[in-house]
């Protein structure tokens, strides 16, 4: 365990253009491989989920953020620490539901969509759907089931990009029988 403290936690950065264009190449490929936008959306979500499941460990190791007390704190950590660390942006957290179980992330800019314009025949494509999968996958690994979807998207002509997140339940850890 003592070795861990020596681990390098420097967070290397790179120019966002390679990232943006690579993501674009991926979405283009999916659009060629699948029949319709719904299938592409699903595939993007699935890939995002796989990323999220792996990303959470990287995140916890680098950020040294502890356990969140409530969903509001989770929201803040996602917006101010995680988005900042990985995408270099800080979305604002707003539109809380009265019960405090649902909120919106408003993205002023979204590095995934630089240079992007949706052609008319892809009007149901949720271009950045990968992000929803990432958030869902990462939170699932810290025992939170959430529902994540795009409520608004500048690519479809909205003024801002809004990701809506809803808390569903805590996932109880299922220890294998006899493993107490």
């Amino acid at each position, binding site marked *: 365990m003592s070795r861990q403290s020596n681990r390098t936690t420097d*967070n*290397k*950065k*790179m*120019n*966002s*253009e*390679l*990232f943006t*264009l*690579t*993501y*674009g*190449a*991926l*979405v*283009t*490929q999916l*659009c060629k*491989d699948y029949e319709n936008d719904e299938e592409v959306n699903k*595939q993007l979500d699935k*890939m995002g989920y*796989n*990323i999220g499941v*792996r*990303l959470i460990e*990287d995140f916890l190791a680098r950020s040294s953020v502890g356990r969140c007390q409530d969903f509001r704190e989770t929201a803040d950590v996602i917006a101010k620490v995680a988005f900042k*660390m*990985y*995408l*270099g942006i800080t979305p604002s957290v707003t539109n809380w539901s009265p019960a405090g179980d649902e909120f919106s992330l408003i993205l002023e*800019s979204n*590095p995934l969509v630089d*240079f*992007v*314009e*949706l*052609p*008319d025949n*892809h009007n149901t494509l949720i271009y950045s759907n*990968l992000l929803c999968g990432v958030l869902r996958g990462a939170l699932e690994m810290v025992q939170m089931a959430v529902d994540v979807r795009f409520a608004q998207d500048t690519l479809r002509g909205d003024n801002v990009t809004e990701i809506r997140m809803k808390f569903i339940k805590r996932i109880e850890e299922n220890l294998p029988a006899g493993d107490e």
Partner: protein
Amino acid sequence: MLNWDMSQNEMENRFTKGKSAILEMPLARVKTEVSVSAFALLFSEMVQYCQSRVYSVAELQGRLASMGHGVGASLLDVLVMREKNGKRETKVLNILLFIKVNVWKALFGKEADKLEQANDDDKTYYIIEKDPVINAYISVPKENSTLNCAAFTGGIVEAILTHSGFPAKVTVHWHKGTTLMIKFDAAVIARDKTLDGR
């Protein structure tokens, strides 16, 4: 980025329905950065996705290269505008330097380690990168030891050369790190020779 197969109709739409917001964006680079981990995770998903749809290493590299083509094609124009004031290269050596310096800096934040010409063949050049960022977090399984995911970079370079009027084939090899082998069409070299001395 999804629109290089625009039909006539779409083309008309584009110019009649009013200026799209994207046309108002400045070309100059607003320097933004993302974390290398984010890129590594994304690239890893890409490789896995490609792998699930192919039967051989060659096919997998082919798929990565064709995705790289999309990146190269989109990047070329913006780089020529930004770095060269819209002026295109006409000589083989200059386009290679453009790739070694400008393209590499835009993509990876540094120049490529080396640019070399083959001793025995005037059509063949090598761009050598000791530790490409793309391969930094990839461990290649023993049974597929020839796989080099920098095939993606190869695709980018091939697209930039081809769209600049220097048709070439780019292949990727494990040699002194990663070597991109660029083989120009014979016509390109012949043309270059007639330009000599001008």
